[in-house]
């Protein structure tokens, strides 16, 4: 079966000032897959995710060359706000706005021009259901989002991203601060989202990548060392450095 490519990078190089953070990166991400990225700290995983929705450019010292394509269109030719609506991101720490649960989710649809109250209410409910949070918060949508637990806040962030109807969701070590039960709930939600969305999961937890992803890439010092089906990568890695990393010999 030929898989449809959603995101493709060609000779992507990313720099902060003089520091090269990603080197000659070439990879393709397929529609509806969960694509895992593992690697030690500072290997450029976050930079890669934030290159895909151009958030890196908020930093004045950032520069990049090479090409990124999203659905066959060069990223340079897509408006930032349209691109970011279609490629959502979940940050490492749960980032909620200091407003109610409801308003956190309603914010996205509102800035994209949806004004009708019942339309927004419906989006809020559906998004919370998809993020497996609805049952826990349906009676207190007006209470401050910051009062939720860390795991709930992170699912709220997922719901907020879903509310703008993206095609791709980027996760940046989004379970790193959570306990195993919260993590399991979030992984369940990700499995259910598979049918509709393409998901890219950066994780510092190799077991999570092995559990959740279908294909997996190993980044080291800004280079893509190995990319394979997750099962193959974890059972018979071709590169010694991958082997060392997944067996816990460094990083």
């Amino acid at each position: 079966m030929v898989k449809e490519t959603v995101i493709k990078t060609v000779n992507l190089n990313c720099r902060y000032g003089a520091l090269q953070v990603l080197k000659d990166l070439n990879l393709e991400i397929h529609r509806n897959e969960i694509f895992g990225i593992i690697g030690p700290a500072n290997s450029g995983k976050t930079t890669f995710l934030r290159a895909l929705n151009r958030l890196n450019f908020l930093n004045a010292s950032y520069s990049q060359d090479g090409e990124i394509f999203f659905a066959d269109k060069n990223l340079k030719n897509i408006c930032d706000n349209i691109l970011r609506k279609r490629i959502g991101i979940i940050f490492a720490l749960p980032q909620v706005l200091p407003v109610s649960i409801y308003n956190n989710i309603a914010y996205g649809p509102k800035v994209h021009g949806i004004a009708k109250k019942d339309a927004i209410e419906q989006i809020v409910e559906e998004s919370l259901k998809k993020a497996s949070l609805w049952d826990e918060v349906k009676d207190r949508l007006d209470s401050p989002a910051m009062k939720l637990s860390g795991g709930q806040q992170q699912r709220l962030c997922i719901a907020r991203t879903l509310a703008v109807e993206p095609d791709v969701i980027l996760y940046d070590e989004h379970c790193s601060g959570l306990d195993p039960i919260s993590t399991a709930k979030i992984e369940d939600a990700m499995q259910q989202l598979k049918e509709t969305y393409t998901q890219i999961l950066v994780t510092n937890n190799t077991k999570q990548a092995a559990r959740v992803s279908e294909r997996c890439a190993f980044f080291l010092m800004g280079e893509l060392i190995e990319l394979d089906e997750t099962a193959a990568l974890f059972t018979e890695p071709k590169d010694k450095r991958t082997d060392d990393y997944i067996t816990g010999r460094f990083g």
Partner: protein
Amino acid sequence: MTTARMREKIAFFVLGLITLLVVIPILMIIFYIVKNSIGSISWEFITQSPRNGMKEGGIFPAIVGTIVLIIGTMLFSLPLGVLSAVYLVEYARDNFFTRLIKLSVVNLSGIPSIVYGLFGFTLFVLFLKLGTSILAGSLTLAIMSLPVIITATKEALESVPLSFREISLSLGATKWQTVRYCVLPYAIPGILTGTVLSLSRAAGETAPILFTVAAFYLPRLPRSLFDQVMALPYHLYVISTQVPNIPVSISFATCFVLIGLVFLMNLVSIILRSHYRKKKLW
């Protein structure tokens, strides 16, 4: 008790004493003014025009004039100041040019008020032919207030966590939507503080209004933006130094009203601020 704790106690005591030194002059000024004005303050004093060569009657036109000037000043300086700060913090790239602007803003606040007065006189009264008018006076006071409003707004914007902007942008909001909905609302308390601070100063200044709007004696109320008005600080100056034989208690009572007005503005800002602070959760 250990010596370390003793030392700490002594340090706290000394620091408290020094802090008290700051409070004492303010209390003394207020006490002195209240004591000397108490005989002249009356309903008539705040609601009537001066009579009989300002020796009798009240200061109503000056109160109205000062309030009109405060409002006029705010109408010009608040939008201009806030938008400039938004530009500097949210939009401008960090380069030589913007650093120059920021430096100018800081230095503008150090310019003596009489210089603003003369500047306003030349630019607004003479060159733009606005005449000695509420418009010219408000514009002059507005320019004087700008640096403080800009600096306070800048600081307020910078203290809003970067993550709020990232959340908003990452959901596909435009830059302006982000500023409008995810940054400005959280900066309001800081903006308020700066605005009230600079308006309080504007309310009490004499030099900037001297040649641009203030009237020596004008018992009727203004009818248009091109009228002159009496104003409290200038009136105070006039009755204290320019007109002989005015009872001292009238000067003190005028002082009292001016301070009361500034105090009221600060009170409003404190109330608004605490209202917004209750919503601050991060």
